[in-house]
C-alpha cells in the first residue's frame, strides 16, 4: 500500500500536504482500496469554514457512502471538480489528480496532532 513520506495523515484516512498556510486534502490509497469502485464525489463548497474533524466531503462507492473529514480547520479555497466529473480518479490517483479540496489553515498548530507516514503505516498495518 502506497503511503508517501512527505504527507501528513488523519486516522480517518485523509492526507494533507501543506505549503505555507495552504493545505491540500485527499483520501489515502488505503481508503480508496477499502471503498473500491468510487462512483460519486462531492467536494466542499468554496468559502466553507471547516472545523478539524468536521465532515468536508462525501464519496460513494457502488456499495456504500463514506464521509471525508477535514484533518484541520480552515476555509475552503479550491475544490477539485475533476473528481466530480470523474470519481474513478479517486481510485486511480488518490495522492495526485484526485485531491479533493484546498483550504487556508486557521491554526497551523493542529498539524502536530496528525500522523506522519510511519505512524499511519502502523495504523493500517502496511
Amino acid at each position: 500500500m502506497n503511503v508517501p513520506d512527505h504527507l501528513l495523515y488523519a486516522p480517518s484516512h485523509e492526507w494533507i500536504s501543506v505549503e505555507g498556510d495552504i493545505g491540500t486534502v485527499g483520501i489515502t490509497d488505503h481508503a480508496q482500496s477499502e471503498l473500491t469502485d468510487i462512483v460519486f464525489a462531492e467536494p466542499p463548497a468554496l468559502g466553507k469554514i471547516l472545523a478539524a474533524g468536521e465532515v468536508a466531503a462525501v464519496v460513494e462507492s457502488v456499495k456504500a457512502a463514506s464521509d471525508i473529514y477535514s484533518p484541520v480547520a480552515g476555509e475552503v479555497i479550491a475544490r477539485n471538480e475533476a473528481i466530480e466529473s470523474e470519481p474513478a480518479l479517486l481510485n486511480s490517483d488518490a495522492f495526485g489528480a484526485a485531491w479533493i479540496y484546498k483550504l487556508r489553515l486557521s491554526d497551523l498548530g493542529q498539524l502536530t496532532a496528525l500522523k506522519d507516514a510511519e505512524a499511519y503505516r502502523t495504523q493500517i498495518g502496511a
Partner: protein
Amino acid sequence: MRTPLFAEHQALNARIVEFSGWEMPVHYSGILHEHNAVRRDVGVFDISHMGEFFVSGENASLWLDSLLTNRVASLGLGEAQYSLLLNEKGGVIDDLIVYRIGAKDFLLVVNAAKIEEDAAWMCGRSIAGVDFQNRSDAYAALAVQGPNSARVFAELFSEPMPTSRNVITRPDATSFAVTTGYTGELGFEWIVPAVEAVPAWRAALACGAAPCGLGARDTLRLEMGYPLNGSDLSPTHTPLEAGLGFFVDLQKADFVGRSALMAQKETGITLRLVALCVEEKSPPLRSHYPIFSGTTLLGETTSGAHSPSLGVGIAMAYLPAASATVGTTVEIEVRGRRFRACVRKKPLYQKTS
C-alpha cells in the same frame, strides 16, 4: 455460517461481508468489473447459502399447490418455475424456484435468510402422503451467468445449454443444471452436493467464468427490476402490489393467502412496486431514501444502487397507484437534497443486441 466455498473465496482475496448470517464474498476484483463481466462475458456466483428443500410423495404436487402461488401441477418433468410462499394475509414470506425432478418429486430453492422460517411454515401445514426434507446443508449451488455462459455449460457437460429458460438438464441426477438466474443474462444455476462444490467452482473458473460476489449480484438484479426478499418483498406487501401477479394463479384451488389476494383485487391495489431511474446527476441511491411528489411523502426506496450499465442511480419503491404509472416524475431525497427521478418500465436495463 460459511459455504463449502469459503476457503476458495479467501484464496481469491474476496472481500467478505456478513449476509443473513453467512460470511459471503461481496466482491473479488470489484463490483463494476464483475457486473460488466456478467453483462459482456460470463461470471460465476457462489449461491450455496440458499436453501434446498426436497418434497416428494403421492400428494407432493397437491400440497405444494396449497402453499404456493404458481400452479405446480402444470410443471412438466425437468421444468422449473418462480413462485411465492404467502402468509394468510397474502404477504410474502419468501420467493423461490420450484423444480420438478420426478413425477412425484420436487426441489425448492429458497432464500438463505428464510430457510428456517419457510421450513417451519411448510412443516406446520404438512399432510399425509408428503415427505419434506430440508437438505440445505447438504447442497451447494453456483450461478453461471452471462452471454458466454453457454460456452461454459458445453465445456462442463459436453452438451449444448438448453435454449429455453427454466429447463433442468439432468432432473434425475444428484446434481442439477437448470437455465435460471437472477441477472437478466443467459445462464444456468448448478445445484450440487456440498462435497462436489469445490471441484464444480474450480471447473467453472477454468472455463473462463469470472468469480463474482453479492455486490454485482445486487446491481445486476436491480437493473432487471427483480425484487429481493427482505428488501422489496415483505410480509406486509402482497405479490399483486409487487407486480408479480404473473406468478400467482388465482384460478387454481385454494392456497394460503388466496382469499386475501382476491379481496385485494376486489377493492383495488393501492400500492405498487415500481422501478425508478434518476434523471439528473446524483449520488448513488440506497434503500430507505424518502420519495416525494412536491411536499407529499409518497414512500421510500426499498432497494437502490448506482447502475453500472446505465451510469445513474436506480431504485425500487412502493408508491401509491396514482404515482406508480410509467413516466411519473418524483423526487428522491438524498442527505437533505432532492433529485428528480422517473418511474420506468422494468427492466431498467435492456440489452442492445
